[in-house]
């Protein structure tokens, strides 16, 4: 019998959540118990920086703004670490903060720069196949996302770029897992049409 056959049956979702969240919870607990010791939160930061940054970048479409909002997110998380009660949802808690920060940023900026840039995407963009094959550029995707229904764009950004599972996205957005899957599906479908349309000469 192989190790895999011998192992308890599990779903990917529970599998992904398990030990990863154990580690997050242990680190968050340490950060809560020892707020003057930066090491535990530094480790949480190291583990979650890529996901938060990707989410901010794909929602804002601008590197400098993404860095600013990422910084605001982690500083707020550090300040309010005691309000995390878990268990097993540190990533969702953190992305929830990032989501609010993005919304606040968008409202204050009114997305003037990014939307203007979005309208200036040249019509000679590569075809969809070329875009897929040649590694989509995140800022390009971000521009395309601005044209989608907000809930669809949000679900896609949290699920794919924030690195959350479907259940976690549902927790952040207050929707069922089925609804999140449908939103992501429709976001990808819309994105496909938008990118394909833009690829036309």
């Amino acid at each position, binding site marked *: 019998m192989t190790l895999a056959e011998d192992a308890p049956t599990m779903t990917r979702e529970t599998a*992904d959540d398990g030990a990863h969240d154990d580690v997050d919870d242990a680190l968050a607990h340490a950060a809560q118990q020892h707020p003057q010791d930066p090491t535990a939160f*530094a480790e949480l930061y190291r583990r979650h920086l890529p996901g938060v940054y990707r989410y901010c970048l794909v929602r804002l479409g601008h590197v400098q703004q993404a860095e600013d909002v990422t910084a605001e997110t982690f500083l707020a998380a550090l300040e309010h670490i005691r309000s995390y009660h878990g268990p097993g949802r540190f990533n969702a808690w953190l992305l929830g903060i990032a989501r609010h920060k993005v919304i606040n940023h968008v409202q204050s900026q009114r997305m003037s720069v990014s939307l203007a840039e979005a309208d200036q995407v040249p019509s000679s963009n590569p075809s969809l196949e070329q875009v897929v094959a040649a590694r989509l550029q995140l800022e390009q995707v971000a521009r395309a996302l601005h044209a989608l229904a907000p809930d669809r764009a949000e679900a896609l950004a949290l699920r794919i770029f924030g690195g959350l599972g479907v259940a976690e996205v549902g927790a952040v957005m207050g929707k069922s897992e089925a609804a999140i899957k449908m939103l992501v599906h429709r976001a990808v479908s819309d994105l496909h049409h938008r990118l394909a349309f833009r690829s036309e000469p």
Partner: protein
Amino acid sequence: MNPTNEGHDQNTRESQDMAEELEAALRATEAGHEPPAPTRLPQAHADLGAALANLAETTIPSPSFAKRLQEQLRIHSGPQSSSQPSTPPEAAPAPPDAPLMRLARPARRRVDQHPQWRIAAAMAVGFLLALLLVPIARAGVEAALGAVHIRWAPPTTAPGRPTPTLLPSVLDLAGETTLAEAQRKAGFAIRLPSYPPELGAPQHVFFQNLGGPAVVLVWTDPQQPSRVRMSLQALSSDAFVWKVQPQKVEQTSVHGKLALWLTGPYVLQYRYGAQISYDVRYLVTGHTLVWVDEDGITYRLETDQPLPEAVRIAESLR
């Protein structure tokens, strides 16, 4: 049901099926697998989803930004913000891949409160999946070297059983004993590192029965006895430990033989029969070098030292 409703229901079901297929494609891509061929979802949509997932994985913040923010967070943590307004060069923040944190030691939990403690049968020695050539952990991939087994997708909690708190330190293991007593029980020669020269004898020795005898040697910081400087676990071929979701696994060698270098933090836990034991597991915060010696003993060296130093320590065992 009228035809209009039937048509609507059919469309809804089709949309749900496509949404499920897209989610399956995303999960496969994120796990590093080939996405399954869609049956209802347009292939172009599946491809776009996979491309987006790959794009996400390859997008990282700039190192300079990561370092700046890390320093900003350090300054905002605790009293440093008021007592250390400027950062001395020696206190510069660690890079993202620097040695990891140590947690405060909580009240000791005794594993021998669980007399049923036995571990499953021995597993075959030393097979390694070709996927380990890829230095990035992928969910669901398993590998083994000697008594150490690695799993990226962790087990679920036993039904109806709360998940106990992790033991934050190897010092919280039960079975502390003397080196002589451990040597008497182990049934194999306990070898000690002769490097670094000033290392000396371990400050703590634990003996455990993990399906087979296992010895854990711990060296602590002389200035801070609760801080583990290094630990060396020697596992007989009948022992079995289970590492869950290390961040990264790389191949290396000890005395010219295959060894693994694992980057933490990750959870180390043991196995009882077909069940994963949740009673004995702890958070590994440093890096680990795993190798098997010529006598079939598996060694796990946990250290915050870089790989070359870890190999040097491993090759100094006498």
